[in-house]
């Protein structure tokens, strides 16, 4: 899973897609995940990190991860 190269993300959660002109806001966790994806970390890697850091059950994270991927795909932010 890869973010499109030209997508700009800021630490405050602002996302801009220069190809379409669309902009987005992300909450803290989505922002963090996008940053990690940009560093080319694998989904499995990121999930392990998040499970250690946040008070969340693996099932819940798994479900929310899939939902985030669907959102990214909907907004055409994935390669």
């Amino acid at each position, binding site marked *: 899973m890869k973010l499109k190269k030209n997508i700009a993300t800021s630490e405050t959660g602002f996302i801009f897609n220069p190809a379409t002109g669309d*902009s987005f806001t992300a*909450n*803290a966790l989505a922002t963090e995940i996008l940053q990690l994806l940009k560093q080319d970390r694998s989904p499995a890697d990121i999930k392990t990190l998040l499970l250690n850091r*946040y008070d969340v059950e693996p099932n819940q994270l798994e479900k*929310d991860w899939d939902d985030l991927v669907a959102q990214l795909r909907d907004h055409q932010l994935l390669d």
Partner: protein
Amino acid sequence: MKQRYERPLIKKLSAGPLNKFGARTETQPVPDIDGAPVKDLLGEFGSPLFVLSERQLRRNYQQAVRAFRTRYPRVQFAWSYKTNYLNAVCRVFHQEGAWAEVVSGFEYEKALLNGVPGPQIIFNGPSKSRAELERACALDSVIHLDHFDELYELLDVAATLPRRPRVAVRVNLDAGVYPQWDRFGFNLENGQAWNAIGRIVGSGRLELVGLHCHLGTYLLSTKPYGVAAQKLADLAWSCRTQLNTPIQYLDLGGGFPSTNTLKGAYLPGTDTAPGIDEFAEVIADTLQRAGFRQDELPLLVLEAGRLLVDDAGYLLGTVLATKRLADGRRATILDFGVNVLFTSFWYDHKISPAGDFSQHTEDTVLYGPLCMNIDVLRESVNLPLLSRGDQVVVHKVGAYNMTQWMQFITLRPAVVLLDEQGRPHRIRQAETLDYLQQLEEMPTHLSPSAPGTSPTAGGRPSQATTRP
């Protein structure tokens, strides 16, 4: 210690016109009701759970009485049982001084069991059996007549009684409310009401003590009440001058709005509903100018329902699941549905998370737990990012839910009253399967012991016998 989790969300920023009222989100968390933590209430009594605030019930009642008594010398409220006839709720209002207004035989018995003396029960509605009429006569309640068939039945009952039963005439009239509730009572403008009054007085068997009208429910204008008060006062005046029958009370019914938001309304109810003082002003002012001498002003009876109880009721519940719909919209499934929250058919109920949340919100449709397509609590509402297990509070649910709720697919939940110190008292247990089955009966040929009913006896083997 791990950090608090909020599921990841990405929201497209639209360059469309901004809502003129700014972002109206309903995201203030509501962690407690009258100081009782939502978490503890759900933990102790189960989810979902109706909660009523005794403090708010009393405050509403006192405020409504004050609104009228400061403007008119003789005022009596009668608690509209069908709005919420949980006995604890009724008793709070009776303690405050309310009579009872009932519309069925069982409501009538409930009022008696709640200690209301017969003469303080107003028996309304289009359906009173002969036995119920006889009982109401024996206990000297006031029977509000709805139609001629009932009037003749009562005349028949009265023929055998030593004392004249007390009656009032329910009148329907044109007060500019549409649709006009002309199915109840006798129409004023076409002469039906006057005709009924003539029969009553002419019979000599009934004592006409009151005139009644109830214009509708959730009326957002004060004007119809002025029109209705004027027309009833004129009618009372005619009774006195033409039939030598002074009317003891005028009953203007209920219909005063709570601050809920009607479905499809442009503005929230808190911004649009006139306060009870404004209604009181119009009614009292009209009656004061109607020509009665100060010492012969009729008693003003009011049957406010939802106004007194709606905002004292809360429904607490829990998120069962969230999902995304085919078109990308978020859906949240709650553990209570339209079977329990009947008023979600009329209102866009305000709903708040009980826990803390970040400032991020999303639009979501709120579904109940029923496997039925109609089970939609809110078509679209902006809420923080709820997840399975999160607790929510629905506001202003005290009126008509705890009477019109249905046992359908799920059982009805418990109801708790928070006393004036905020201490919880369960006033109705959650229903159980046993309770549900109590009234069912089984024909003997379908009983387990009947021949041929054993699953193994017939041609169809049960699962139990085919499994190894």
